[in-house]
């Protein structure tokens, strides 16, 4: 009897194990998106980046430090130019706070500002704060597979759930088989392309392939764009929990 029991359990275990293994060589669209975001965010990261806002008659570059933890916590602090030094931005989940040393105040960015540009750029506050929307509020489908640098590139169509509070009609996300997100296209409710996030400059940073340049471009304004360059990045670093608190945003202790 005992023998049968063990056999039965091992059978079940075997079945479970077998099912959890990838049977199919083609992963599901949702898994790809999830993996891409996990890859991009990692467990934690610290990076130094530059953001360039380009307009027909002027251009401006800000340099910043970025700390991230998991998928829902990030802290940005501007280190140059001098005029903006010390400004900070904290995201926890869907909430975003901004700190300005000029007035020594922390301001919570209200939901009504979600579609305003983040720090005057073409990235909206939502683009910055709600990276995980794509996982939770969209249904994904692989439209096509192409090739990018000799690697498979999955073209994924992501359509928001019917009741999801998302402004987009759909997104087209292009993810490479090594889970690098290569491009993201945002369509409005009428299926018109509104803006694209394109990438270039794939580099090795602390032992991990990283997309170093991202460019957000609105379709109706071809002369205006914002580029985000990652200068250096470190993954899986230990970041104290206190970094992602309002008091640290206001008063960074070294």
């Amino acid at each position, binding site marked *: 009897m005992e023998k049968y029991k063990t056999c039965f359990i091992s059978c079940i275990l075997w079945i479970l194990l077998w099912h959890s293994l990838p049977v199919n060589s083609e992963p599901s669209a949702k898994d790809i998106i999830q993996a891409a975001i996990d890859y991009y965010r990692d467990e934690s990261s610290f990076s130094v980046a530059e953001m360039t806002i380009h307009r027909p008659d*002027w251009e*401006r570059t800000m340099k910043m430090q970025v700390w991230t933890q998991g998928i829902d916590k990030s802290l940005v602090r501007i280190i140059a130019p001098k005029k*903006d030094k010390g400004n900070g931005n904290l995201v926890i989940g869907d909430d975003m706070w901004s700190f300005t040393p000029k*007035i020594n*105040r922390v*301001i919570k*960015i*209200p939901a009504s*500002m979600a579609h305003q540009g983040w*720090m005057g750029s073409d990235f909206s506050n939502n683009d910055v704060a709600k990276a995980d929307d794509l996982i939770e509020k969209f249904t994904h489908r692989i439209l096509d597979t192409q090739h990018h640098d000799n690697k498979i590139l999955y073209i994924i169509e992501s359509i928001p759930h019917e009741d999801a509070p998302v402004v987009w009609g759909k997104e087209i996300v292009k993810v490479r088989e090594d889970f690098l997100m290569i491009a993201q296209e945002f369509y409005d409710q009428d299926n018109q392309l509104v803006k694209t996030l394109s990438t270039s400059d794939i580099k090795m940073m602390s032992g991990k392939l990283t997309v170093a340049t991202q460019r957000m471009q609105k379709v109706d304004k071809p002369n205006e764009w914002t580029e985000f360059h990652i200068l250096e990045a470190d993954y899986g670093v230990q970041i104290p929990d206190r970094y992602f608190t309002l008091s640290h945003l206001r008063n960074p202790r070294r």
Partner: protein
Amino acid sequence: MNTTFRFAWRNIWRHPRRTILTMIAIGFGCALLVFSIGFQLGQYDLMIANSVKIFEGLIQVQKKGYFEDSKMRSSIPDIQTLTERLRKQTGIMDISPRANGFALVSSETRTYGTMIIGVDPKYEDKVSIIPGLVKEGRYLAQEDANEVVIGKSLAKNMKLSIGDEITLMGNGRDGSIAATILPVVGIFESGSKDLDRNIIEMPLATFQDTFSMEGHGHSIVIYHKDAKLVNELQKTVLQLVEDQETLTALRWDQLQPGLKEAIELDYSSGWFTYIVLVVIIVFSIMNTFLMSVMERTREFGIMLALGYKALNIGKLVMLEACLLTIVAVFIGTLLGVAINYYFYVHGLTLSGMEEIAQMYNMPSTITPQISFESIVIGPLIIFFSTILSALYPALRIRLLQPIEAMRRV
């Protein structure tokens, strides 16, 4: 011609009572049209004057393209100097510079995204009535005072009262982060929901300092109380800013296309009523004319038999109609103008409007517009449609056969 004229005049007065009644119908219609068109146009003048006066001004000088896409970068350099120059060259003192921005504004408890307007406290009261509508506290003191005034609804939404501080955060003209903390010194109530809910005003110099404007601004607001001069004024201003190719001058109707559309819509729906009125008048007149022709069938038969041409009889009848209408329209128009003139001098006060008007710093009386347009349009329409309605009976005469006509009872 002279005989025909006398003939016609006498014919009109063959039935004095009927003629007078017809004249009263036409005259009354005319007076009514003159009165209502005058009042309607007068009301539009008032609407335009009021909305021009609240905030937008009659004309605004802006950078080309700023109105369509209000970017902080599309600004006018050295705006104070240009404003001063415009004051000198146009001779109009009611000109004031502004700068507009958008910022996150926080009180202790709430945060809203709102418009921030930088104004010149010395001149703002000449181009906008908002400075006069501060219901609590006071308006901005001087050009570089570190303070703001705020719309009543916004103050309520943000739970702000006089003396409280607000925190502003936005982007400066150079893309840098603009932020400041300023106390609220006044709360205004303009009656316009848009303004009361969305606007914070601060002195221009403070605005320029906060938003790194370096002397730039976004619009030069020009006020003039006679909105009819807008086209000439626009031309003058355009010539004056010609040396700065990138600047343009926009009229009130370009700045507030919604108001213009609303007026046009209201005007055309008003015309629907007028047309119904005119049609009623026309039919009653047509009846009179038709009767006067029908009852004279025998008379016309004899005239035809005597060799009078049908065309001439038609002319006679038309002349009768013309004479009658001209006299009636003339009297009616005089009456209408007299009524309008009375109200033009004394004003028409609608009961209950006084309080509301006073609250929002506006005149409480409507005065009709007395202009060539308002006086002439109505009577002209009545005149021509009446003549048109006389055409049918006059043309019928051509169908008459002399013998048959003479035998008619």
